[in-house]
């Protein structure tokens, strides 16, 4: 997570260098010039489109500028109102650039989103259309071929359905005022509900479930947890080919629950393990597998909404996605007794 905010550190370093230069050449530079030089790191951060970071750097720059150069030097008191204006201008410049940068970023994201979405919806749609066209044209094909095509149509439709649900969830998760609908959930039941969306034959063939006998009820948002499980199952089925094993393990711990989704596959590269939860991130070799990468991003948002952690790591002959969800509410004695 930390590398995302590297630019703030860079800005602070630049600011330090500028302060050093200004101190050394103070006698040769007008105060106005010094002020203008101090704008450089602010602009640098503002281009990232993060106003909080911009405000922080602007504040530090103003502080340094005030303490070091504005008379009386080495104090916070300001005698001349003109300097207050310059502070305000620092912030204003930062704000305007941030807003512009945000606009550009939004447009870029929107383009990426549209491209991936149209690609992701078109892929299952073309398999549906292709199969239907064949079925309509050739009325004499064997029943087996017909069944294969019909199954293809069903799988394609299921894929589209999952993607649409993900998009709707994404919109819901983006809402900062999102009220989670917290209730007592049975994670085993939720896993069962998530499995209802998958192909029975595939489940029978490759899925192994291990649910802790001591599993307690969990306080969380039922629908979001179903989505979380469905996305991770989808991911496991997608990236492990037909013959490989998938396992889901739910373990009750003292402080919460650990859920691990494991699928046999080639190991992921170290840097992929970190970025795999980023929006629209796809593995380099995943071009042939449908999915926009929005699934894992949503998983991360759902886990974060429950104050939990999600990580991916290579394990033996495959990849494991591990979720840790803290217990947010204690079960009363009465429910324990019933268990």
């Amino acid at each position, binding site marked *: 997570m930390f590398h995302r905010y590297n630019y703030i550190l860079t800005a602070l370093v630049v600011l330090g260098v500028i302060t050093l230069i200004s101190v050394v050449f103070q006698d040769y530079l007008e105060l106005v010039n010094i002020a203008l030089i101090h704008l450089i790191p602010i602009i640098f951060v503002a281009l990232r489109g993060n106003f909080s970071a911009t405000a922080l750097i602007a504040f530090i720059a103003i502080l340094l500028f005030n303490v070091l150069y504005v008379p009386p030097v080495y104090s916070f008191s300001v005698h001349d109102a003109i300097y207050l204006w310059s502070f305000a201008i620092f912030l204003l410049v930062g704000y305007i650039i941030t807003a512009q940068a945000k606009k550009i970023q939004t447009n870029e994201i929107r383009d990426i989103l549209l491209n991936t979405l149209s690609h992701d919806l078109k892929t299952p749609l073309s398999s549906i259309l292709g199969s239907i066209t064949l079925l309509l044209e050739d009325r004499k094909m064997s029943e087996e071929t017909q069944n294969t095509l019909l199954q293809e149509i069903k799988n394609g*439709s299921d894929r589209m*359905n999952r993607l649409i*649900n993900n998009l*709707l969830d994404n919109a819901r998760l983006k809402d900062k005022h999102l009220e989670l609908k917290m*209730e*007592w*959930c*049975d994670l*085993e*039941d939720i*896993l*069962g*509900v998530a*499995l*209802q969306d998958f192909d029975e034959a595939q489940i029978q063939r490759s899925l192994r*479930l291990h*649910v802790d006998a001591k599993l307690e*009820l969990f306080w969380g948002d*039922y*629908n979001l947890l*179903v989505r979380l499980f469905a996305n991770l199952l989808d991911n496991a089925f997608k990236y492990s080919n037909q013959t490989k094993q998938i396992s889901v393990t739910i373990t009750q711990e003292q402080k919460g629950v650990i859920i691990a989704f494991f699928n046999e596959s080639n190991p992921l590269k170290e840097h992929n393990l970190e970025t795999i939860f980023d929006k629209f991130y796809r593995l380099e070799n995943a071009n042939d597998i449908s999915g926009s990468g929005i699934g894992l991003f949503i998983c991360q948002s759902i886990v974060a909404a429950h104050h939990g952690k999600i990580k991916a790591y290579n394990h033996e002959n495959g990849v494991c996605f591990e979720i840790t969800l803290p217990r947010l509410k204690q*079960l*009363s004695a009465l*429910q324990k007794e*019933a*268990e």
Partner: protein
Amino acid sequence: MKPNELILIVEDDDAISKLLTISLFEYGYKTRYANTLTLAKREYISHNPMLIILDLGLPDGDGKKLIKEVRKESKTPIIVLSARREEKEIIAALDLGADDYVTKPFSASELLARVRSTLRRVHHDISPQRLTCKDLSIDFTTKEVMLNEALLKLTPTEYALLRYLMQNANKVLPHQQILKAVWGVGYQNEMQYLRTYINSLRKKIEKSSTRPEYITTESSIGYRFCQCEHEKGDE
């Protein structure tokens, strides 16, 4: 099953109503069709259908209004069609007296199964002494539950819950409805009781709690018990 009985389809999407008409026709049902609330009321009054399939989002109002009006006068079964994201809506519709619901996108076979079992429930509204479902049977007089011919030990609450589920087999039962019926009116929002007891009941009757055969979960709505034998029809 009497052929050629009339089902009223209330749906504003042409593609969906066409699909419904075709699949119901295949099974010998006649259909009438309405794409607005106003038209639906008129059709209901003039044709007295034996069942209504109702979409909630209609161009001239909320489908729930129709449920209210129909329930004032009759027990005509109503199956609600809804887009997946409307749990509150579905629960409200069930509370108003809808008999069941199917979410979009739905499979035609699932909808037909719902139609058949809803009609059966209405026509066979009997209270049998004994119910059997697959390898599980319950006797209401002796309060004995048998699984694979062995007596099953249940706590009083587990028994009350199982009895309620089996008496309403193959019908969707919203959480609050079950809580009210089994625990009492004051317990409507005590979801943890329900989750805990469903889990313990599953552990006793299901081969796998994650992939249940008897008590299936209707995501966010409630639970449904599988088809019971005294009303075995043409499933």
